[in-house]
């Protein structure tokens, strides 16, 4: 019997609430880590919270000390800090002369665009290449995919990006070297979309390389594992062609480990986007992190760290939902063993 739409909705809502409750310890640990780092930093905690050393006015420093209760016991300070963070008050960046929250929200879009494209490209192509390799084990295609995977595991992301710039931007002149769009061109509508797309090619390709290789290998192993199962033998006995079996039967089961890993690796994807955005001048959270390093704006950096972790928690929830769509036997929230 199919559950009613309303029942499903209620279950999803209940699940989301439960999942949020389980995410709270994670977020709390990150707040604790941030707080610890603020106090571990050399110098006064107010210096760290003010961002760029020496840029803040004495009045603001005084105000900060008061606001964060820096003359109070450590436990009180922690509570004040947590209260501020949980109300998304992430402080003020003197370097940019803007609240940290506003800076982060502005830069979130480009990072999500880069990450989304990378996820689609690496998971999509990875699945296709993995299926190809599994269909022809030990063929030249399979071996080429294995060698490319080995090399891309060992390539530093930032270096791959620089070398792609040398080849495709400097030598061939096909693609732009940096930025997200040609601001001076004042493009509008589709011209602007096309322009952003052209700027997106190299950063997304760089960030995808490692994960593409990883998912291709994972998909290959997963397809081979499924190929020995009884339901495949049954499908073959029914007289289905090999490609019908692969696309209609094996794919849906074999793709589950890939989805799991894609969810787990969102955090590492965000880390990778720091170096990739820095290399390509992509105006997202990663290059904001790099700028804050350069300016020693530590409070901004800690804010980015906090938001990144929250982003991972949210994406993991989305992955859980995708998982339950792919495999209806798995109920929401019961993926622990997978």
């Amino acid at each position, binding site marked *: 019997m199919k559950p009613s739409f309303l029942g499903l909705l209620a279950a999803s809502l209940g699940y989301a609430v439960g999942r949020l409750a389980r995410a709270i310890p994670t977020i709390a640990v990150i707040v604790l880590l941030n707080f610890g*780092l603020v106090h571990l930093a050399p110098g006064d905690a107010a210096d760290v919270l003010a961002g760029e050393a020496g840029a803040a006015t004495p009045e603001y420093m005084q105000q900060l000390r008061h606001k964060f209760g820096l003359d109070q016991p450590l436990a009180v300070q922690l509570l004040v800090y947590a209260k501020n963070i949980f109300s998304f008050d992430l402080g003020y960046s003197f370097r940019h002369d803007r609240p940290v929250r506003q800076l982060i929200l502005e830069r979130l879009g480009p990072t999500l665009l880069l990450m989304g494209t990378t996820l689609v490209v690496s998971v999509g192509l990875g699945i296709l290449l993995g299926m190809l390799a599994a269909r022809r084990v030990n063929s030249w295609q399979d071996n080429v995919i294995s060698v490319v995977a080995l090399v891309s595991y060992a390539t530093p992301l930032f270096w791959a990006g*620089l070398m792609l710039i040398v080849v495709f931007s400097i030598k061939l002149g096909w693609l732009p070297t940096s930025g997200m769009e040609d601001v001076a061109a004042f493009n509008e509508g589709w011209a602007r979309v096309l322009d952003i797309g052209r700027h997106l090619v190299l950063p997304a390709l760089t960030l995808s390389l490692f994960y593409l290789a990883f998912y291709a290998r994972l998909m290959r192993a997963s397809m081979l594992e499924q190929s020995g199962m009884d339901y495949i033998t049954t499908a073959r006995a029914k007289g289905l062609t090999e490609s019908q079996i692969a696309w209609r039967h094996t794919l849906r089961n074999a793709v589950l480990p890939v989805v799991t890993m894609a969810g787990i690796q969102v955090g*590492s994807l965000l880390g990778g986007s*720091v170096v990739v955005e820095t290399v390509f001048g992509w105006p997202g959270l990663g290059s904001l*992190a790099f700028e804050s390093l350069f300016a020693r704006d530590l409070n901004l*950096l800690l804010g980015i760290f906090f938001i*990144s972790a929250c982003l*991972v928690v949210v994406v993991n929830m989305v992955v859980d939902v995708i998982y339950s769509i792919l495999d209806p036997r798995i109920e929401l929230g019961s993926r622990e063993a997978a």
Partner: protein
Amino acid sequence: MAGRQTFFRRLLRNRAAVLGLVVLALVVGLAIVGPIVHPADPFGLVGRPFLQPFGRFLLGTDILGRDVAIGIMYGARTSLMIGVVATVIAVVVGTLLGGAAGYFGGALDRSLTRVTEIFQTIPAFIFAIVIVAVLSPSIRNVIAAIAIVSWPPMARLVRGEFLAMRKREFVQACVGLGMPDMRIIVRHILPNALSPIIVTGSLMVANAILVESSLSFLGLSDPNVMSWGFMIGAGRPVLRTAWWLCAIPGVAILLTVLSINLVGEGLNDALNPRLRGT
């Protein structure tokens, strides 16, 4: 000793692993012997800037006139040192905590599992950046940051191994004989869990080298120590005119990490003959 002989024979039969061993031996040799045979200051200016490779200097000079080959040599030392030390710390911490959790179970196990789960959510590389940035970039802090972000997977692995081993008959027999816990763990369980620890540890060294190079590329390296990532970062502004200044250190990283991965996979096949062919 027969076991050890078959292990080496199996390892040497794997052509990729042998290739990895040869390259790795060259890099290690360069890192250890190079600075002794040819002592030099990697930050010293030796000639005109932007001299092309294969001229007066083997790999040319960089943007300020530093010898690139000397930089590669000292960079090998930095990369390997940081990679190995950070990994050893992570392996020891991960094994101690994971082993204790897997063996004793209970509240310790539950809290460790929670901690490693939380670490899976925290973006590791950004965490490493934050640690080094807040504590100031020095060799010690870079090693600490890499170790802090890499111990949880090891703890998970060791926990799983110990948990499975705990229920096996030979361990139950030890418990029945009244053997002290420490003795069971060190003499009986640990040796059986050693091969996955070694294999994972070797792959962790490769990963640590990649993380270190990314950190130093972002400017988070000890200012007094030469590193490959720093060299790439320094060559980046002149990418258009002197792309080889970025290319050369990158090839060094690529070859080193690739060789360690090949050796790691070779170790995996040689230590787990049952898994061969999968």
